[in-house]
């Protein structure tokens, strides 16, 4: 009998699951239900599209041929209820879709701001391609835009709108950018570069009220009691896993949809993967949330394989991202907290892992080469985290040292703040480790 695989969502977790299923089962029926009607696209790529680095067509991540070969059935609608006992999903368009195995790949949604007037037209978020279209069409007419929030997305919004010729004011509640991941010096470098690009960056400034006329935003009032005129207010204050459907349908949830290391939910034959899923640490009963593309991709692959009957285990990797902050490449690996609270986010932001905010008992070493900087966080025996700003040459070595928890205690004793001495010695330690572990 043909197996009926149903996937809710059409992001990267969904696509990689569908590919993993098709690799193992050439005849089963794969149905993708999504409220997004677009072909599979790169969500992080939206920022580059907004900034005009790439045209829209570049966002689509599979060729027509590759999609055909997957032989997917697509339904454009929202899933509103899962009847786990009957093994069927109810859609907003009235359809009932039966399944043998179901995957929830519902992603995360940007949090809404709580200030007065938050319902006005022209207040936008950046969750998907439709939002990007709205941002671009507003930016065409807008003279001024205001961006609030923290993390990568807020900055991408500010730079993207600026690149589209809008005068952008970026308001930070705190006194520096991304203060729980970057340290003071790193924040300052990014902030100086933003100002240099022409973005009106204001610290300790918060929107108290959005003021509009006939439902359209016209200005904001800040905590400084200033009125800033604007035709667009872009908000990126964090994201939340989309668990509403799972919750309504009686599945176990916490911050995300709870899954085992096999990515199985509390209900039989239902799996979850990507931004929406949460795996608790059996020791602490807690989790560190990741909103990261490579993790959603890896989980999708495993969930897909397990839906066909395999028993693969998802092993949490050390969260790692490289991103552009004000034109500077910045790699963030493992635990490398910025040491301060971040008032600009109400929850974890896209492209971020909560792990990065942690700061182990460490000795920090930094290098100053104007903009090329490396910050290292050592634990007792091994490197726990690293932040590399600017030149990325050392990222691969550092990443491997952290990933494999290579013992570098010999170096730790002799730490100086001279990275020109430390980095080659770390590389040597890695080479020795790789040599020892070669089979």
């Amino acid at each position, binding site marked *: 009998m043909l197996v009926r695989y149903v996937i809710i969502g059409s992001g*990267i977790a969904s696509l990689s699951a569908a590919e993993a299923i098709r690799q193992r089962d050439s005849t089963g029926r794969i149905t993708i239900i999504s409220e997004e009607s677009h072909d599979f696209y790169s969500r992080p790529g939206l920022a580059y599209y907004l900034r005009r680095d790439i045209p829209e067509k*570049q966002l689509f*991540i599979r060729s027509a041929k590759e999609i055909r070969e997957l032989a997917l059935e697509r339904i454009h609608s929202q899933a509103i209820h899962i009847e786990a006992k009957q093994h069927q999903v109810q859609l907003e368009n009235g359809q009932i879709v039966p399944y043998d195995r179901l995957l929830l790949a519902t992603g995360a949604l940007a949090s809404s701001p709580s200030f007065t007037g938050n319902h006005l037209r022209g207040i936008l978020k950046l969750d998907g391609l439709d939002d990007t279209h709205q941002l671009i069409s507003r930016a065409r007419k807008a003279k001024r835009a205001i961006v609030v929030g923290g993390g990568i997305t807020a900055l991408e919004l500010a730079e993207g709108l600026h690149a589209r010729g809008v005068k952008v004011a970026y308001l930070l509640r705190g006194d520096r950018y991304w203060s729980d991941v970057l340290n003071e010096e790193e924040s300052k470098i990014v902030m100086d570069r933003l100002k240099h690009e022409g973005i009106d960056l204001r610290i300790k400034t918060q929107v108290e009220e959005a003021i509009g006329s006939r439902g359209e935003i016209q200005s904001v009032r800040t905590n400084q009691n200033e009125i800033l005129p604007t035709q667009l207010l872009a908000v990126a204050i964090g994201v939340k896993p989309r668990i509403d459907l799972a919750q309504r349908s009686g599945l176990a949830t916490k911050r995300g949809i709870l899954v085992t290391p096999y990515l199985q939910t509390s209900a039989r034959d239902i799996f979850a993967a990507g931004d929406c899923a949460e795996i608790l640490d059996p020791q602490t009963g807690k989790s560190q949330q990741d909103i990261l593309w*490579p993790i959603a991709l890896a989980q999708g692959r495993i969930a897909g394989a397990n839906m066909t009957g395999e028993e693969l285990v998802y092993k949490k990797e050390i969260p790692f991202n490289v991103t552009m902050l004000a034109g500077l490449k910045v790699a963030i690996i493992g635990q490398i907290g910025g040491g301060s609270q971040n008032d600009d986010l109400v929850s974890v932001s896209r492209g971020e892992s909560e792990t990065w905010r942690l700061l182990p008992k460490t000795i920090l070493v930094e290098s100053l*080469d104007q903009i090329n900087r490396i910050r290292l966080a050592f634990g007792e025996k091994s490197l726990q985290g690293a932040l590399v700003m600017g*030149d990325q040459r050392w990222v*691969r070595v550092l990443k491997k040292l952290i990933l494999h928890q290579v013992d570098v205690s010999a170096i730790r004793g002799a730490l100086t703040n001279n990275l020109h001495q430390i980095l*080659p010695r770390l590389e040597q330690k890695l080479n020795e480790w790789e040599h020892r572990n070669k089979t």
Partner: protein
Amino acid sequence: MSLFKNSRHLALAQAQVVPDSELCVQCGCCTYNCPMEIDVRSYARKGLPILESYCLTCSECVNRCPRGVLRFEKITNPTGS
């Protein structure tokens, strides 16, 4: 020794573009900027080095990738096998 080497120097020697596929977010900036219209993204996704004979090793994709996925590596075995 400089801690930060310029990848162009390597490119001038015999080198190929190699991806670290784990990091790729499939944004397509590399493919879009390749003057030879090589689908770099598809190599990056599959974790394969770019072995197309018409790759100029011009480093455009390496520099444009916002994620540091691509780098030059010396060709140790020119057949690539």
